[in-house]
């Protein structure tokens, strides 16, 4: 490969890792806002645990992205540089992750839809020719399997609980649905990496919808009708929420640059 092609391949790989890191980090960030405020102590613990898993996944992907960036680069970057020193338009997380938590029904639905996507995504990623991506996916898949079960159980419990909980779930699902479309539309960096990671997006979408249908049906909930889908996250075009998340999350690193903590 000539050097431009190598460079582009490197860029695509970095973007790919960042997309996965950012999605996990921002989802974890939102879930961590529940810590100390959950509806019961047991669930406070559970949601914090999932936040921890997601931040752990983010760290793995950031570390890998940093490693790739640092190849033949004089200025070395760290996982923290990537998490704390990029502005909103450089973040590639799915929009669904940055939406505010709302009530427990909204958080649960969000987590279920997101984790189910993560599940099928990682399930393909473990076969990637890129060994690092495959290894991180494999490690994460165990965690995500649990997240799907845990959030799925809650979807069922709330969907088939009281009238109030059902109504809240219906509203949550309806408002979240437009943010599920972009999961299945590959960004340029995903397309470019298809020799290394071969994801069949339409199969993934089918698997995803089947799983969602299954859980929803047990939850006596229905899948929303076809609707217009939001997108932009993978390409750095976000909702107005992300800026506020970053202002808070990055404050220390921005205010006290270049220090050890």
């Amino acid at each position, binding site marked *: 490969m000539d050097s431009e092609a190598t460079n582009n391949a490197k860029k695509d790989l970095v973007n790919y890792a960042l997309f996965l890191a950012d999605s996990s*980090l921002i989802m974890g960030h939102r879930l961590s*806002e529940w810590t100390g*405020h959950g509806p019961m102590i047991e669930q406070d613990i559970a949601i914090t645990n999932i936040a*921890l898993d997601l*931040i752990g996944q*983010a760290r793995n992907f950031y570390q890998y992205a940093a490693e790739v960036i640092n190849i033949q680069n004089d200025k070395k970057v760290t996982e923290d540089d990537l998490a704390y020193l990029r502005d909103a338009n450089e973040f590639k997380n799915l929009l669904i992750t940055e939406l505010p938590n709302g009530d427990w029904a909204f958080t649960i639905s969000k987590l279920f839809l997101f984790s189910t996507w993560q599940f099928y995504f990682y399930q393909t990623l473990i076969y990637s020719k890129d060994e690092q991506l495959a290894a991180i996916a494999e490690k994460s898949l165990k965690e995500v399997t649990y997240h799907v079960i845990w959030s799925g159980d809650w979807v069922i419990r709330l969907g088939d609980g*009281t009238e109030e909980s059902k109504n809240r779930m219906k509203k949550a699902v309806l408002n979240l649905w437009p943010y599920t479309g972009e999961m299945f539309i590959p960004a340029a960096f995903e397309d470019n990496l298809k020799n290394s990671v071969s994801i069949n997006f339409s199969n993934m979408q089918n698997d995803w919808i089947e799983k969602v249908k299954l859980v929803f049906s047990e939850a006596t909930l229905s899948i929303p009708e076809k609707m217009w889908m939001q997108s932009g996250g993978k390409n750095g075009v976000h909702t107005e929420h992300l800026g506020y998340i970053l202002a*808070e999350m990055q404050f220390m*690193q921005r205010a006290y640059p270049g220090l050890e903590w």
Partner: protein
Amino acid sequence: MNEKELQHFEDKIKQEIRIEPKDWMPDDYRKMLIRQISQHAHSEIVGMLPEANWITRAPSLKRKAILLAKVQDEAGHGLYLYCAAETLNISREEMTEQLLSGRAKYSSIFNYPTLSWADMGAIGWLVDGAAIMNQVPLCRASYGPYARAMIRICKEESFHQRQGYEILLTLCRGSKEQKAMAQDALNRWWWPSLMMFGPNDDDSPHSAQSMKWKIKRFSNDELRQKFVDVCKDQADILGIAIPDSDLKWNEERGHYDFGEINWEEFWSVIKGNGPCNKERLDARIKAHENGEWVREAALAYAEKKKEVIDDVVKLS
């Protein structure tokens, strides 16, 4: 009161045989334990809030993960303790109600705000440190479930304390600003930490009985002295100064002398006037109220499933 049972109970206490839930025990012993254990449980739960306040702003991903895990541990401690208290015939609902209505107390230290990242270090070092000082002897408390909960908790707490100290160590070896941050945190947390050991022995009404029943093993002032002695050396290693001009080594006593605690502040914070009393309780009330429909739904679902199972059983 059954004289024979009381005699038997007191013998066991004397012989350091643990009292277990099904054993007979005096009403006041039960009440004292409920008060102490539930207060401790509430402290773990309310104590999550000041630290949770910095999770979203932790300065590195590693620190964020450690902090999340720590606050999660505290929720776990709260759970163990509520369970231990439940063995004394009080429900978690009742204890929660006591907390939210303001009738039950929690450790006053959590009514102080966390104002900088260094506070995560200071809380680990000082607050968890003081807690351990209080709690290690409780691992030998006469009531079995309490003692066993404390053993588990103490192990994790000492881990947290080391993590807190390490946060401060990193700051103190860092930039001028970081060191100032650490000093500022010590200035704010030092005195409230000393207050964690409770009033002076002369003003501590329950202490004598608690020691007689071997719930407590050391007096408030003994533990506080031990804490000061340990912390002074640790502060020296950090290179930051404990904000007490009266603090100095007393060769004769073999201990550090230290200044008078502002007991007016202590009582005032207990009465509800601390900087964050209202916020802490409001946060718990809000979590409880917002969780109500969730708990109801979970219950309704569980009952539906139970009915189904009952029907299946009936049919078979």
